[in-house]
């Protein structure tokens, strides 16, 4: 009955050569990188949370926030 808002959804992300910077998100080329930040949380538990967030603007002008789960290596879309 209660559910969280803004749940992350899996995303297809292609990165640049070796630098881990996203260049394509769900088939759309990245036009502009706005900001990047790291979230490390719950490291004191058995399920630590480590995410590298990227806020970017796609070539069609859409603002998108994606992150890479540094524990599993998978990419997620969270807020568009």
């Amino acid at each position: 009955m209660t559910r969280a808002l803004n749940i992350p959804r899996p995303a297809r992300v292609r990165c640049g050569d070796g630098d881990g910077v996203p260049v394509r998100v769900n088939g759309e080329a990245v036009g502009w990188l706005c900001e990047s930040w790291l979230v490390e949380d719950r490291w004191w538990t058995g399920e630590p949370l480590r995410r590298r967030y990227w806020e970017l603007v796609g070539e069609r002008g859409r603002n998108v926030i994606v992150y890479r789960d540094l524990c599993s290596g998978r990419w997620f879309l969270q807020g568009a």
Partner: protein
Amino acid sequence: MVVCVHIPRFELEVAAASSRLGRRMLAGQALAVAPHAGAGRSQTGGTAPAGGGRVGEVSGAAEARGVARGMALGEALARCPDLVLLTGDPVRVAEVWEAALGALEGIGAAVEPARPGLAYFEADSLRAVHGTQQATIAAARRAVRSAAQLAVGGASPWRVRIGAAPTRFCALAAAVAVRSPRALVLSGGEASRWLAARPIGLLGFQEDTAALIEPLTRLGVRTLGELARLGRAALCDRFGAAGALAHDLARGEDRPLRTRQAQERLRESMEVGDASSGEALGRVLGVLVSRLLARSERRGRTLRAATLSARLLAGGGWRERVVFRQALADAERIWLALSVRLRSLPAPAATLELAVERFGPPLGEQEALFEEPSPHRTHPSVAVHGRARAHSGARAAARAARLREAVAQVRAVAGQDAALRAVCVDPDSRVPERRVVLAPVPER
């Protein structure tokens, strides 16, 4: 015939099971339940416990070293330096004990729960169901053991001690005295003679008479027979009502059973994530209250008593029973009554649970047919402002009533999840999905 079911050191057994200690370790090592969760020394070693407090239940080995339940932590460690403290888990204790009581009710017994690990029921009324008294006792033993094992998830058998006697206190004395899996059954005359030789420590099982043990021991009274011979008037004169009660108990007289009424339990729980304490935890509580009030099983009934419990991040749990001054169905007032209790949470929580323990009568929806005029006479200029304020208040109330009605209709058509509102649970969280949740819109 009253049957007493006793599981010795119940809280310690549950704490040991939660910390995955083996039964062999429980039998051979000096263990005690730590004063409160989060402050105790764990079984894996670590820091010394902080603060004062008193230890909970202790193992037989700890008892042999002079440590007793309720002893100050400093004294317990001084008497037994290698005492291992287990984090108490009142939430798990309540769950396992509730499962055991449910199992007893499952064989048809009307149960009076005294405290976790101790319960009574009347056996005569079950003779028609199970045949003989022995068959009833065997069924009770099987039910409690299987329920406790299922709840704990262990294969090792729990020690379930059973005594049967004409009165409640005699049955308790029999259950405490018995050392084998076979039940001790005492008949009328035999019970009072047998009781006379029992130690006065049995008075500690009753809250009203527990304080008498220490002064009676100093006076040289060792057995219940010696206590009964002192005379009721002398005990009343010295100890008041507690003395009279102790005299009755020593003679084997006790009140009839007060059995509980089996009723449904509604509960809602939520993982709190980063909102493990403070204001953020209060918002989680708000969500739980909304969810509980939105449950269709409530059928419009008010809440009389509720249990607020939490699993702690550091291990163990915390539990508080809250009885409201009046039966409530208003989310804000329920939240106000419960949020005060969150301050006594001993450590950050991992999950928070709210359960209805008792329902009150359904909330009446009837309103006044005509708006009642104010009984106070006021100055005309003040009266103009007062009328304007009353008018805007009436409009707000009408709007709220329309909204409630709309929510109820939407829910009736499209289900419980149809009308939701966004609630900020932890707006400052660094993890976006933990900031806002969708919760049901309260109908009242």
